[in-house]
């Protein structure tokens, strides 16, 4: 039996696995594959947070991350010669702020839409951003984007080297995930769950449902921005490709693969996605990655309603019924 506190907090195991991973993984696995999975996972976390707590779906999270990415790019030294250079903490702060504001804007514009319509209006906003940045050359350098961006050197640690970068991505991912899990247990989290269950009731109780919803989008925007900042450093550049419709679809695919009803599904989905990206190619044919991802996606949607996290939950219940969650078991006892 694993120690008690691990049973009570199974997520600590995941964090531990993340911390220990560099001991077994090669530089490529740590600095490129795992770091990328963490970044994509963080961006997708913004979506699974929205869906699992507030019941909102959004196609715009890649775009929101892109707003942060572009802000960072424009405020950092780059070889494209656009923007203004400021100290990196300031640039990161501004990026997170702008991304959060972008999230708020998405929430505000789409406030009257829900379900499939919400998906479409957020897709439209995301695509609008794509056209804005790809057609504006003065600020965003259009189609070519902004190049030569680098993660800073902090206290002598070069954050663009694989291991430090991985450490940074892991820290950001763990903190974001912890924040989401924590929020879930606060009154604010409960209020968001309430919004998902019965928005009419939420208003009738005296909550400003619109504000609640917009704040949820803001929080998601912040998380997406964390991913966006890391992603910009990771690719060393920012271009419209990061906010195009494929990027939006990919993020949704990641979230659905992992299970959109559990916040941490985002990371499961991201790991799967990145592994498929690197290995599916060698299974069938180097160019047929999309075929594999498409088929896997269909299978997940058809047969695993809650994605991989749902499957794992089922498996857990199957292996050890006592793990169904102490809470419910307790109530049963109490009620009996």
């Amino acid at each position, binding site marked *: 039996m694993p120690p008690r506190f691990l049973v009570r907090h199974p997520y600590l195991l995941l964090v531990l696995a993340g911390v220990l991973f560099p001991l077994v993984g090669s530089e490529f696995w740590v600095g490129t594959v795992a770091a990328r999975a963490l970044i994509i996972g963080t961006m997708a976390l913004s979506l699974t947070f929205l869906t699992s707590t507030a019941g909102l779906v959004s196609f715009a999270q890649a775009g929101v991350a892109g707003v942060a990415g572009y802000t960072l790019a424009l405020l950092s030294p780059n070889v494209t010669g656009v923007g203004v250079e400021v100290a990196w903490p300031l640039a990161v702060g501004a990026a997170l702020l702008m991304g959060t504001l972008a999230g708020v804007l998405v929430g505000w514009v789409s406030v009257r839409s829900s379900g499939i319509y919400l998906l479409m209006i957020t897709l*439209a906003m995301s695509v609008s951003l794509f*056209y*804005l940045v790809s057609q504006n050359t003065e600020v965003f350098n259009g189609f070519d984007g902004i190049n030569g961006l680098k993660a800073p050197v902090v206290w002598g640690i070069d954050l663009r080297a694989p291991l430090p970068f991985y450490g940074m991505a892991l820290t950001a991912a763990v903190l974001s995930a912890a924040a989401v899990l924590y929020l879930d247990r606060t009154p604010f989290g409960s209020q968001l769950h309430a919004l998902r269950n019965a928005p009419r009731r939420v208003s009738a109780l005296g909550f400003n449902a619109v504000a609640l919803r917009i704040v949820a989008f803001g929080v998601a925007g912040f998380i997406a921005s964390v991913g966006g900042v890391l992603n910009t450093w990771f690719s060393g550049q920012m271009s419209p490709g990061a906010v195009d419709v494929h990027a939006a679809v990919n993020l949704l695919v990641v979230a659905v693969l992992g299970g959109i009803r559990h916040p941490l599904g985002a990371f499961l989905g991201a790991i799967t996605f990145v592994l498929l990206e690197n290995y599916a190619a060698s299974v069938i044919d180097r160019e*047929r990655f999309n*075929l594999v991802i*498409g088929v896997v996606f269909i299978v997940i949607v058809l047969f695993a309603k809650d994605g991989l996290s749902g499957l794992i939950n089922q498996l857990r219940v199957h292996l050890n019924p006592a793990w169904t969650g102490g809470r419910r078991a307790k109530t049963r006892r109490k009620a009996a």
Partner: protein
Amino acid sequence: MRFYILLSLNALTVASLYFLVASGFSLIFGLLRTVNMAHGAFYLLGAYVGYDIASYSGSWVLGLVGAAVAVAAVGLAMHQLLLRTLGNDELRQALVTIGFAIVVGDLLLAHYGGITYQFTPPDALYGTTPMPVVKGYPTIRIVVIASALIIGLGLWLLIHKTRLGMLIRAGVDDRDILSAMGFNVQRVLLLVFALGAGLAGLAGVIGGSALSISPGEDARFLLSSLVVVIVGGMGSLAGAALGALLIGFAEQFGLAFIPNYATLLTFLLMIAVLAVRPQGLFGRG
């Protein structure tokens, strides 16, 4: 003057093409409440299949018909295999069609490669039709406008003047009661799905003749269909027509006067409509 007439004709052409694609998309949504994100893939599939049939048989018209039939069949298969099992879960339906679109797009790329295909329409269609003021206008583009008018009129007649149309409208209004009156609604749904998919295939041949066929067109026409029906109102034929016109004009006039932000303009138009009237201009709300 000539310039503005030309611009308007271009806008009409683009609007016609958008309408052709979006009408099927809207039809499917209207009755089935399914947002078929594979509609763009259907368009591209129709274009390629039509191209193959047309170049093999030497008949453009056969390509047109063949593409419509083939894509309708693929649509039916997708509906029966993937959509039916999901019941009324709109979100999962949209997701599964995204997956299907990814698969179809990749298979098409694998088979047809990345080169650009263009139909060889009958000589009568390839060339210029003389017209007053603007002197001449490409015949194929007039064909596009005409086909949109014909298909639009045909759909209108189908929906408002035929028994099947009555069934479709009744099904949109109240599916349950229609089935309780003894009609096999599932069959009507299938028929409509096939019709909508077939329209995408047909549009693929027409669009592939007026423009060209290449990878990436699937996403482009899916997006345009989404924008058109969102602006016009999901499930409304008139809405699709109005939406297509608005987008067509915004896009072409934008391209002529503010080329750098032409596409952005159409999306801003859509966001504006959605923020004010989430159900679209003609949508029921």
